[in-house]
Structures are given as C-alpha cells and as structure tokens.
C-alpha cells in the first residue's frame, strides 16, 4: 500500500516529455523497477509503478518471475486489465495461487520471497520508511499506516524503495519508523533480529541509490538522464554521498519502452 495521496490518474495525465528523452520519468522509474527483478524471483510487487515494472520484467528478462500480493494472490502473469488495487478482479482471475494472507506472509517469513517493493511518505539516509504520521508546520498529519509494508521491510530477502524525490520526503531521520531499513546504520538489523536483507536500492524520480555496504548509508548510484547530482542533493535533506562509480542511469531500451506502453497504453500511471 502506498501511503501517499493519489490523484485520479486518468484525469491528471499531464505529460512531461522533455528532449532528448522520448520517455517520461515515470516510465524510466518503471523500467528501473523492472531491472531490479531477476528471473525466477518471487517479488512483492505492490501497486502502481512496481506492478508495471513486474509486467515489463516478465516481458523481457524475467519470464519466470512471480508477483506476490499480500492479500493472498500470486501471479505468474500480469493482471488481465489495468487495476487500482491488488484485490481487483482482473488481478485475481487467472492467478496462479490464491491463498490467504497468512500463507503469503508465511512464504515471506520463511525466506521464500526474494524481493519486495515498498514506499512511504518519508525515507531517510538509512532507508527507513514512514507511513504512519509526519509533522507538517507543527501539525501532525496522520497517514494510513503500514499495511503489509513493515512486514516486507522486515522479512523480504531484499527491498527496493520507490518514491518521488522531494526534499520533504528525503529526510535525515524519519519521524516514525514504519518499515525499517538499516535503522541507524551498520549492524542495526542484525542487533534487532530482522531476518530480511534490508533495502538494496532506492529508485526515485531523480536517480537510483544504493546503500554503502559498510555504513549502510544511502548514496547516489546513478542520476537519471537530464538530472544532475546537484539537483538530487538539492532535493535531499541530508548531505547525500555519491558512490565512487556514480554514473548516469542507463537509457531505457526501445524494448523496455515498448513493454511499458504495452501495459500502460493510456499512460495512466506513467505519463
């Protein structure tokens, strides 16, 4: 479950096509998400962009990946129609396995889910996510809560964080830890007994971020085409480090773009 407020996408289809891209930022995010899915993996694909990423990965390099939904649905093929939530009928008809939440979470807890996508209203420098409440000009703003995100963050083999990049969302320390990343850094997950591997990457609207293997601090791995390291730093509320081999996010291939558009022909999610 995304905690951020969504708009009715088919009414706000504001295109942001900028030269020299012939693809949108959101398309690039979907493609980046797809690239995180390895063939044969079982992946919590959640909703919206990762769901499309799953479809793209299946189409291209991960034909044997399985998409998992916490309501109890496992699919080896994308939903039969565009959907708003994991429980929508086109995501259930033609599923591979439809069990209960406990069974899906049991697969997760017993180490059989390699990856999960998660997001939040805030992320911090150690990849902790907050979907419970945030301060806003001295007022508290109550968000919907964890859903299954905290479970995925705790238990999945690895997590990929996917979020819009805004300074108010990329904060030094989240105000509330809903979905733990690396806590306060090195050794924290081990000390607290979290079985899963923690966040492997963050995909934002500006770049892709890895976590320093020693300090577990988020660092810029690549900036999206047309974005500078300085722009990313400006939109980040802590002194964001840069990986030694920082580079530009690889341009989407023609196949990747075509795959996104096959599953989102109207640009509902990606325009």
């Amino acid at each position, binding site marked *: *479950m*995304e*905690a*951020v*407020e*969504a*708009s*009715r996408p088919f009414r706000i289809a504001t295109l942001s096509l900028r030269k020299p891209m012939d693809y949108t930022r959101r398309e690039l995010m979907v493609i980046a998400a797809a690239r995180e899915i390895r063939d044969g993996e079982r992946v919590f694909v959640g909703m919206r962009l990762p769901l499309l990423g799953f479809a793209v990965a299946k189409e291209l390099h991960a034909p044997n990946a399985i998409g998992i939904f*916490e*309501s*109890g*649905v496992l699919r080896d093929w994308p939903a039969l129609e565009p959907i*708003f*939530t*994991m*429980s*929508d*009928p086109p995501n*259930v*008809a*033609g599923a591979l396995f*439809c*069990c*209960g*939440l*406990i069974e899906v*979470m049991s697969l*997760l*807890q017993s180490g059989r889910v390699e990856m999960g996508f998660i997001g939040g209203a805030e992320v911090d420098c150690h990849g902790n996510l907050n979907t*419970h409440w945030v301060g806003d000009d001295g*007022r*508290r*703003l*109550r*968000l*919907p*809560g*964890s*859903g*299954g*995100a*905290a*479970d995925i*963050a*705790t*238990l999945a083999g690895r997590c990929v964080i996917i979020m819009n990049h805004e300074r108010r969302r990329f904060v030094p320390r989240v105000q*509330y*830890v*809903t*979905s*733990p990343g690396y*806590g306060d850094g090195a050794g*924290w*997950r081990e000390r*607290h*007994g*979290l*079985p899963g591997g923690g966040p492997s990457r963050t995909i934002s609207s500006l770049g892709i971020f890895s976590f320093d293997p020693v300090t577990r601090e988020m660092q810029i791995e690549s900036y999206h085409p047309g974005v500078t390291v300085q722009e990313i730093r400006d939109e980040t509320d802590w002194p964001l480090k840069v990986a030694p081999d920082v580079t530009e996010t690889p341009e989407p291939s023609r196949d990747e773009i075509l795959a996104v558009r096959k599953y989102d022909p109207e640009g509902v999610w990606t325009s």
Partner: protein
Amino acid sequence: MPKLRGLREAIAEEIEDGMSVFMGAALESLIPFAAGYEIIRQRKRDLTLMTTISDMQFDQLIGADCVSRVCGAWVGNVAAGLGHNYRRAVERREPAPLAVENHSNFSMALGLKAAAMGVPFLPTRTLMGSDFREEASFADVACPFTDENLLAVRAVKPDVAILHVQRADEEGNAHVWGNLGVTQDAAMAAGKVVLTCEEIVPHEVILSDPNRTLVPGFLVAAVACVPLGSHPSPTQGYSRRDDDFYFDYHAQSRDRAGFDEWLERWVLGVDGHDGYVERLGGERVARLKPDGDHMAAPVSYGY
C-alpha cells in the same frame, strides 16, 4: 431466531454499541460496505473497528461518529489515498477523539489466527525494529528450543466479524472465492459472524463443494442477502470496483460539510440498501457487472 434476515434486522439485532467489529477481511475486495452504511443509519456508537486494510469504510464510520477506537494495519481510501475523516479524528478530534492501535497486515492476521486457534499469542519474526513494535499487542518471547528472540502477537478476538461473500445457504454456510486475505481467520476468531451475500443458494450447492466453504454456518449468527453489498469494492464474479465512487468520496469528504452531504446523499437519505442501489442507477450498476464469466475448471467429488 432464523439466521436469514434482512440487513436492517441483522444489524439491529447483532451489532450493539461498544462492540468490537472486524471488517475488511479480504483487504481490498468483499468489503461489507452495505453493512457499514446500515450501522451508520442505525447510529451505532462507541464501536471498536478492527481490520487489516479498512478501505474507505472506516473513514465513513469514523466521520459518522460511530467509532471510538480503531485497531488495524491501514486506514485510508484504497483507490485514492488518505482518509480525511480518519485524519480529522486523529489530528483534530473531529467529530470525536479516536484511539488507534497500530498493526501490520501480518501481525493483525497472526492476532486473528491466535484467537481462531484458541491460543493467547503467536510468535513471529516480523516488525522487529518498527516503532509500532512498542504497542501493547506485542511482547518479547524467547523460543524454548533455540533461544531466539521472537515477537509475540497477542490474540485478537473481535466480538463480531462482518463479511461479504459470494453465496451462502440459509444456515450461513458460505462459499467464498477469489481474493481471501484473512476472511477465514476473522470468521474463526470472532465471537460471531454476520454475513452479507450476493446470493442465497440451496444447501446442496454448498455441499457440492465443501472445499469452497470458507465459513461454516455454526459460526454465523445472521446472514442477509445483499446483492452488490460490497459496492464500491469488488466481488469476484459478481461486480467490479467502482473507481469513480472512490475518487468522488475522496474529493467530497475533504471537509466536514462535504462529507455530511455525501453521507446524506448515499447513506442517510436513501431507504436502506435498495435505495442506495436505486440511487446508483441502472446504467451504473450495469457497468459494474463483469464482462462475462471466467469459469473454474470442473471438479468431481465422485466416490
């Protein structure tokens, strides 16, 4: 008292002020909206609502001042995001203060499972390191075999679970399919079950496929035939999600006055569920019907 009753009677007779009520068991489908609307019409008060993912149903009940406490993993609007009434209640105590107990989907499911199994807790590895691990529903427990530190989740026992299902017989034996979430765990954890269903079918239909029975009738206190009873959420094989309804509610409930108008239009100002369906209009209802069938492969229990 017969189990098969009208929705109005079922809610009047089975739901009391102050009860704990589990809804939203399938997470984002089969939400018993019609039952929730009827709870609002009957001005039930001081309820504790429990859920995994509440959909916007909890937001409606909170705005209508039926609720004093929420216990769940996610309260919002599954299509459009935040729940405005939920925010107003938590942030500004409008229309009344609201106590919140935070769970994750898995911890809530484990709490129900513990109650269903008749044990006071179940152990898990989830939520280690989350801030809401400090809630009173969680405690440390060591494995007596491995000495590992695990999280104990306290049993969650709602007074009643309200479930919408595809078909049931007059005794409340229910076939459910598609997306399930914690449906069976909620039924087995609760003190009693109130069912709404798309169709009442002969007992023999249930007996023809006992693996499809998710809730046996002896757990059920009342069953009401309420076609489209999950609207605007979907019921596999019977109705699609009504996306517009979600976005319209989201926009209208942005302030109290807008929510009150919404409530009058869709809940208080209509004559029960039939009036609600009438207000939706035949064309809209027709659009919600599935595009044809998608039949399960045949199965024989031959012996």
